[in-house]
């Protein structure tokens, strides 16, 4: 899971760096070469990627919480196994991404601390609550659907470790969206109450999902550098449009109504949505979404309550090392 909204880059401060190296670097990017961890790179490239990859990782880890909320209540054993496996995958994806971020020189502990302290961002979408089982279907269908739109181009990102992590993530995530859509199909073919549950979930998630793609292109400030560095290959609006066009027929198949009565198809066949409430987006990013505090509190609690376990493992490793040394000295 992922949000384009976080793909903002840290300007380009290569003025203070070796101009020749910077232009060699750009030439490599232009030639579609991959950049690897020990290669020279502009400080701003490193900073932008560290931030983007770690925020992507935080999103995976925080993203475990809204769906994890339903693992113990999944309505059949088949659904329970699928959901547990899916949420576990998200943890795995978080770990692949932290591993990729660490190759840029910042430790995972430092990255995680920045998230726990509220300094680092994660995707706004996970600050909304999962109220009914239909939310689990909707997250798989729409949130994972939006994430996939976003992540597929990242498989060709200029930074090798990030691109490789995304290839692995995309491969594994292909079941996530299908899992969600299957839940929606079942609900929509079920009782009237279930169908209403599905519609209500779509009503609540639709706009926040559109916001996942980030601000409209005309106000998105940092896209240029990210595009030049081939970190970002499509604009926010392009991806959002692609997502909507793919989703409309799926909603139609389900017999659900997208909660945008003003949405129309233009002459190119694209569905044009009504204006998005960007104030809501800003509020959620600023920490004022319905679940921001709960999400951070849950992650902090796990981290703090796990400290004694991690300390025990470290203490044991030390003891074992000194025992081995003592043994070798005998």
């Amino acid at each position, binding site marked *: 899971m992922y949000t384009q909204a976080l793909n903002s880059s840290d300007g380009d401060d290569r003025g203070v760096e070796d101009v020749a190296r910077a232009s060699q670097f750009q030439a490599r990017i232009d030639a579609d070469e991959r950049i690897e961890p020990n290669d020279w790179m502009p400080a701003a490239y490193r900073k932008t990627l560290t931030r983007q990859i770690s925020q992507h990782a935080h999103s995976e*880890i925080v993203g475990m919480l809204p769906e994890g909320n339903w693992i*113990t*209540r999944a309505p059949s054993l088949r659904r*329970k196994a699928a959901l547990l496996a899916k949420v576990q995958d998200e*943890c795995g994806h978080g770990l692949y991404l932290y591993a990729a971020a660490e190759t840029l020189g910042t430790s995972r502990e430092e990255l995680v601390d920045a998230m726990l302290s509220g300094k680092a961002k994660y995707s706004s979408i996970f600050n909304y609550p999962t109220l009914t089982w239909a939310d689990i279907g909707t997250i798989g269908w729409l949130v994972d659907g939006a994430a996939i739109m976003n992540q597929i181009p990242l498989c060709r990102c200029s930074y090798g470790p990030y691109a490789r992590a995304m290839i692995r993530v995309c491969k594994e995530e292909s079941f996530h969206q299908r899992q969600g859509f299957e839940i929606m199909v079942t609900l929509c073919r079920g009782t009237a109450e279930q169908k209403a549950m599905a519609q209500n979930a779509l009503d609540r998630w639709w706009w926040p999902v559109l916001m996942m793609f980030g601000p409209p292109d005309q106000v998105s400030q940092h896209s240029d550098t990210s595009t030049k560095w081939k970190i970002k290959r499509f604009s926010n609006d392009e991806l959002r449009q692609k997502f909507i066009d793919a989703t409309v027929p799926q909603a139609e198949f389900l017999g659900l109504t997208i909660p945008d009565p003003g949405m129309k198809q233009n002459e190119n066949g694209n569905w044009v949505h009504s204006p998005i409430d960007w104030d809501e987006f800003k509020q959620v990013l600023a920490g004022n979404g319905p679940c921001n505090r709960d999400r951070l509190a*849950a992650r902090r609690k796990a981290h703090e309550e796990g400290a004694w*376990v991690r300390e*025990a493992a470290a203490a044991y490793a030390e003891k074992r090392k000194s025992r081995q040394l003592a043994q070798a000295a005998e």
Partner: protein
Amino acid sequence: MTVANIEVSETPLMLYALRRADDALILGHRLSEWCGHAPAMEEDMALANMGLDLLGQARELYTYAAKVEGRGNDEDKFAYLRDVRQYRNLLLVEQPNGDFARTMVRQFFYAAFADLYWRAMMASSDPTFAAIAAKSEKESAYHVRHSSEWVVRLGDGTEESHRRAQTAIDDLWAYTGEMFAVDDGERGLIDAGIAIDPATLKARWLKTVTGIVNEATLALPKSDWMQQGGRVGSHSEHLGHLLSELQSLQRTFPGATW
């Protein structure tokens, strides 16, 4: 329409499968409660993997119980439409997760038994059980490996982890005896070569457990008083809460398909 609890015909073989299925489901459910909250992300992965193994075992065993019973019940009816008195799992597996030490000690006590149990059950004259055993044995063997490594690290880690691990052992010990108990119905299955006598596993189980507990600088309690009752539906208070969560959707929307 209200959903009553299903009726279950507990013939010996059916009940035998149902009890093992309940063990696996309830322990798997407990492990799934950790998801997103583990002490380290690496451990989140491990707990979920063990939970998924157990959930898979439960589903196969329920399906077999349903087949033996032949009354149109299925895995979900068994899981979602029985009340606490109808559940047949060991008291050990329903004990709350508590801290990570308690979860790992519970896992270790159970897996050290399950590993021996499933390995022996591979020789069952019942081909379904033999097949389930062959798969479950490998899973359980890994659960022993993982949980025992943690018991050693917690016991021989810091003062705090040692104290927590020892408390977990002291609190859970009385629930281990039930794993080795057998009733008349099961005795018949043992005589028929379908089931194995768990009493024959006890010495080896104790050897494994003692070995790890010693390595962990921990100690087993002196008391040999053992709690019983899970196998006949006399549970601790914890199981009812677990079931009310597990079954909430099925109970709220009777008859719906999910």
